[in-house]
């Protein structure tokens, strides 16, 4: 399940900062819990999260089991030209999640 919600401003002015918000559906299983029969549940958290703006990296984070479920990232990017923001994240199991947002710059 790689659901995510992204929010970026509909229009941006060149050279100005705009706010990016993304929340990702992920259980962020810590590895410290056990299931109903007492067996440990293996850790499975998002390890890396990155955002590219027209291919160039603009934000990256290394996350660990200290981050709550359904992580929420909020950061600022300088508007350069219209294009796309590409989000990518990968968890312990190697599952890769992606999302994309369109950026309009006037």
């Amino acid at each position, binding site marked *: 399940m790689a659901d*995510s919600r992204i*929010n970026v401003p509909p229009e941006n002015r060149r050279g100005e900062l705009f706010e990016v*918000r993304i929340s990702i559906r992920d259980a962020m299983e810590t590895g410290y819990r056990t299931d109903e029969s007492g067996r440990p549940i293996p850790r499975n958290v998002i390890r890396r999260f990155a955002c590219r703006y027209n291919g160039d990296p603009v934000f990256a984070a290394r996350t660990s089991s200290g981050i709550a479920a*359904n992580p*929420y990232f909020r950061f600022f990017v300088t508007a350069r030209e219209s294009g796309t923001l590409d989000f990518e994240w990968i968890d312990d199991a190697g599952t890769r999640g992606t999302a994309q947002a369109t950026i309009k710059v006037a």
Partner: protein
Amino acid sequence: MKVALVLLALASFCAHAQQRALPLDALRPGIEFSGADARALQSDDLANPGFLWVDRGEKLWRDSAAGQSCASCHGDASKSMRGIAARYPAYDANAGAVLDLEARINDCRVRRQKRPALQRESDDLLGLTAYVAYQSRGMPLAASIDGPARVTFERGREFYYARHGQMNLSCALCHEQNWGKRLYAETISQGHGNAFPEYKLEWQSLGSLQRRIRACMYGIRAEMPTYGAPELTDVELFLAWRGQGLAVESPGVRR
């Protein structure tokens, strides 16, 4: 004659008013008992994690993989589902029983879409429920307890005021007689269901009213009814009646 009529009207009004478990002006939604962090999360739809499920529900609403989607019959949910959740749980003539929103969605799935029922507390069922409930945001709870729903309601009321479990507590002892007071670090709320399904930070997930009631039963060391058990629907209907007039907040956020 006129005076008598007015008196009669007044008397019936008073009788009606007394039927409320909590007077209308004393009704307070759970969010008012919550901390600033939960309130901030709930009031910002972009930060509220519950919307991850609302979005999922919206996708499922249009999912026509098995032939008919929800939208094939019900169209635009923002119109067709507006106010529906505020009236649930409700008596369903086809099922011959009172159904909560989750059960009603599953009923539609099995009977109309011919698809297997979704499991309680699965992300898909929570998603659809949250999506439908979200369409009623801001509308006052107004479940009907008349006609065939009456029996269910009375059973729910009985359950609510009966003592349960090793601690020998009833729902009313906390949520009716002691709301607003502290229970360790928590402020006891009035125990309304108007924000469900809700994102509970403790669960790190969205959860249904049934899950919340089960958690209360666990807390008072009583036997937890299984998901979908009639007792839970009974209490859900009683709670909906008890909270009538409160605005739907789904998806809510609580600690």
